[in-house]
């Protein structure tokens, strides 16, 4: 009984909401930036219709750099940028720029991979009908790669949950912050356990929804 009575329920509720807010907002921006970036990577890649070796190499390098910086360091490096953009590096709003910059390149790579999975013959067939590049992407490539892109978005969303916990440590709020304050600094194990349980539930739900959508959109 003590396990439950000593839990700071209002704090847990607020932290959960903050985490969901951070996740939701950063996911929207991540998809909005990562998807076009992934398409650009794909189209300018080797043997693709807008092949630009130098441009691709440069873009690819930037994406790799952003992906290789550990997220906790990325947050710190980006503090001046976040201040400039949002006015604060703290709270839910302050957490979003590093989350997006950390996750968008990751998602872009997954989009690129999903697009590469589309049979080259389909691209050839669509071009042979007189499609423009835009029509090719919007009407053929994206629908064909949709299951892969949704799977990538699911993986990205789950990675973002992990990232939000980290940004909590550096003033971002949310469940990560709660776990550190209660579980680590005040040795309240029960808070730690509830936090982890909540995170697990979120990941499970995301994965389930993602899998359902992938299944719904695949016709192979």
């Amino acid at each position, binding site marked *: 009984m003590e396990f439950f009575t000593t839990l700071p329920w209002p704090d847990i509720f607020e932290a959960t909401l903050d985490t969901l807010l951070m996740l939701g907002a950063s996911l929207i921006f991540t998809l909005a930036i990562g998807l076009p970036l992934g398409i650009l990577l794909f189209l300018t890649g080797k043997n693709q219709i807008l092949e630009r070796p130098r441009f691709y190499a440069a873009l690819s390098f930037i994406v790799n750099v952003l992906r290789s910086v550990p997220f906790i360091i990325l947050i710190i490096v980006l503090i001046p940028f976040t201040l400039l953009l949002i006015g604060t590096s703290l709270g839910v709003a302050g957490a979003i720029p590093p989350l997006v910059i950390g996750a968008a390149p990751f998602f872009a790579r997954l989009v690129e991979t999903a697009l590469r999975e589309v*049979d080259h*013959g389909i691209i*050839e067939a669509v071009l*042979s*009908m*007189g*499609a423009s590049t835009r029509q090719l992407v919007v009407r053929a490539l994206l629908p*064909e790669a949709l299951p892969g892109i949704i799977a990538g978005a699911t993986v990205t969303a789950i990675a973002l949950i992990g990232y939000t916990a980290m940004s909590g440590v550096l003033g971002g709020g949310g469940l990560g912050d709660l776990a550190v304050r209660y579980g680590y600094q005040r040795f309240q194990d029960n808070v730690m356990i509830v936090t982890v349980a909540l995170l697990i539930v979120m990941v499970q739900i995301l994965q389930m929804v993602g899998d359902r959508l992938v299944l719904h*959109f695949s*016709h192979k």
Partner: protein
Amino acid sequence: MPAILEFQKVSKSYRVKKRDIPALTDIDLSVVAGEVFGVIGHSGAGKSTLIRLINLLERPSGGRVLIDGEDVTRLDDAGLRALRQRVGMIFQHFNLLSAKTVADNIAFPLRIAGRLSDADIQKRVAELIERVGLTEHTHKYPAQLSGGQKQRVGIARALATKPQILLCDEATSALDPQTTQSVLRLLDEINRELHLTIVLITHEMNVIRMLCDRVAVLDNGHIVEFGQVADVFLHPQHPTSRRFVYESEDIDEDALGAAFSHVSGKIIRLTFRDEATYEPVLGRVTRQCDVDFSILTGRIDRIKNTPYGQLVLGLSDRDNGRNISEALRRFREEGLTVEEID
């Protein structure tokens, strides 16, 4: 007859490791409106490059490609897209959109062209689905169809924008023999009923024999033989053409040669075409000239709509070959082709 499609000194090479590897060299071709034109070659001969030069999925390195007298290599982007809507294409592996139903696949080129209203598109799609015999599969996805059905969708899709030319890239190579027949019959029907020019590439002589009016034999990036299918099929000149014909007829030339060496008398190959195929020419001439014959090997079949017969005969007479010479003269007079084999 005016040429709908013309290749003038077309060449194509690929740059691999800073060296130019030629794929096609000095190709000259002209395809007449309404005919079925076949290009046959082994894999690596350059035929898939050749067919892709027509709608510029590949750009020629040199020469000109003319469609209706217009040099397609000079078209700008918009011109090229408009041209591609006038040239349909079907593929060995069908290349259907897996995320779209049969109806949506067929509607796809119409939606891209953006000229028809939704209602008109639906009407046209229903018409096309009926033509290729897939009415009960309208709302299925490609993964639910057999290979032959997928190719029918491919054909309907290629016909959607009412093209002048249909390009077939090994369209039956992934299909079993029976399905191949039915797809070839459909293409033949389309060619006759819509007067649609068809250009196809294949490595199977039977496809050429059943469907094509004229054929070009491609070997190592060069056209080595070219002409009416019946001529090339019955009298192949180039070794590559000969190999294609004998492969398709299951003829082993060396084994035949060995078998004939035991036959006494004169050996000839007699070719009948059209009406002569069904005339009792052979019996009449040999009887009148007092020549005996034995049939060593032979085949009687059709090339597209032309019946033909080709027999290898051993002839003997009791007059030191004079009667045989007379018989050969008479055969030629009757319009048969006589080739002497030693």
